[in-house]
């Protein structure tokens, strides 16, 4: 390897990010600790993550409340996360990266699942979970996590 010289370079960006047409989801999350979903009066699909527009139906969606209970679609036990990632402020490693289907919705949602024991693959598809809303909320998907309430067979 030939010679090279390197120097540090630090550059930080900050955002005040607008959620646009799905702002209501995050306002309800932060202010009222509850989930709302988008519902399309055309195709009848109820979605979280919500959408403001249903492309297939060319319709604006409506907001509907949905429960905070859900069924696990997948639970990935994760053992690495770069130290600079902000999730370290919320959970210890390892952690469970969940995909859940909120009750009364037709969609899958990525979310944390928190379980004390952290026995590999103890949380699994079909398990029933319920959202816990953190006391300090800022309108982000890390404002809540799911805990198991019933194991599937």
């Amino acid at each position, binding site marked *: *390897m*030939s*010679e*090279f010289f*390197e120097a540090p*370079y630090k550059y930080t960006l900050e955002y005040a990010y607008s*959620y646009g047409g799905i702002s209501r989801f995050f306002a309800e999350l932060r202010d009222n600790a509850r989930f709302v979903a988008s519902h399309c009066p055309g195709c009848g699909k109820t979605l979280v*993550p919500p959408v403001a527009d249903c492309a297939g139906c060319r319709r604006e969606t409506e907001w509907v409340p949905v429960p905070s209970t859900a069924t696990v*679609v*997948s639970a*990935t*036990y*994760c*053992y*690495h*996360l*770069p*130290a*600079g*990632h*902000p*999730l370290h402020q919320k959970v210890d490693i390892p952690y469970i*990266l969940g*995909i859940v*289907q909120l009750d009364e919705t*037709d*969609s*899958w*949602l*990525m*979310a*944390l699942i928190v379980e004390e024991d952290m026995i*590999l*693959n103890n949380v699994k*598809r079909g398990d029933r979970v319920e959202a816990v809303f953190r006391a300090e909320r800022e309108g*982000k*998907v*890390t404002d809540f996590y799911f805990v198991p309430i019933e194991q599937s067979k």
Partner: protein
Amino acid sequence: MADHRRRVAVVGVGQLPFRSRHPDRQFYELAYDAGRLALDDAGISVDDVDTMFHSIYCEPMMRQQIADNYVQDYLGLADKEGIRVAAGASTGGHAFRAAYAEVMSGLSDVVLLVGVQKSTDVVDPVTGDRGDGMMLAQGLSCDMTWCHPFTVLPPAMWAFIVQQHMERWGTTVEQIAMAAVKAHDNALTNPYAQLRYPLTVEQVLNSRLIAWPHTMYMCCLYGEGACGIVLMSEERARELTDKPVWVAGAAAVSGTTRLERPPELEGRIPAVGAAADIAYERAGITDPEDAFDVVELHDITSGIELVTYEELRLCKPGESGRLIDEGAVMKSGRIPVNPSGGRVACGHIAGVSEVYSIGEVALQLREQAAERQVNVTRGRGVIETMGSGIASQAAVIVLEREEAA
């Protein structure tokens, strides 16, 4: 409507070794090295190039936006046409698809495509770790609202696809580990591979767990580098070589970014399947199980490799485990997959790996792949590139020799 489409040949291949870091070269210097090698291989000078295509994925990794502008000037191509394409870890496949259409349409006769990415000049702000810095930089490809707050690691984000494959078809972690072992065995004969040591199934399974079922040795390497390709019209190609490699078909797909999927798509990667179907139709491939001498695909993880066999229609859904068990995908098998060592052992950096894979299949079809040469009987190979949020952007490219069967 009259069909004015022209045949397009891959005439030049330029590759640099995959390394965790090339500290002695900046991004435009790496691009210069790879571009020069591709032009030399084609037997042309930089003045012969009509248009440059840039396969460049990620600005935060590079510490430079619009890197293509700096690259093209440094290569001596200022004031010629130049277009950059970006599509996650399918960047090079998408860029090649655009470059192919460029020549096919008659807009250009000679195109230089260069993929370049610096990635380990960025560091984790807490630990200074370069690999983690790179993961944080590429993390902006995740859905920033719904995914990024939870992880930036593709082996974690895409694990659910592999888990569904295991649930649905009984695919085992041992079979996934066998794909990783195959990758490492193949990389042994590739002088450009980043990891060149053999592994056993036990070593793969006992390596550090990253995100179940993916252990460290089942996950792609991250590094940096550059690769180049020269594409030409038939007329120009025939002036330079009597053994051109033809582009038989190519497709670049943007898939759904939503997670939910119907039961029939569980354990699958629909964007790859769609790209394969379009590319095969364009190439006139009707029996992909028996069409290719060589496959270079994006094993971002070894679990994803198995799913990809099925999306490339190399076997039916659910049969990829059997393909591994039978050894069909070994270098000496019926459908050699990743004789280069693939992303898991040869190396990976989005934007570069894809161009590398295309060049690798061209070298195989030219029977210039040295110790990693496979037996060429059909005269045809396929490249698959895949990446982005939920494995949601993919390209498939079919290359063939003149006398392809």
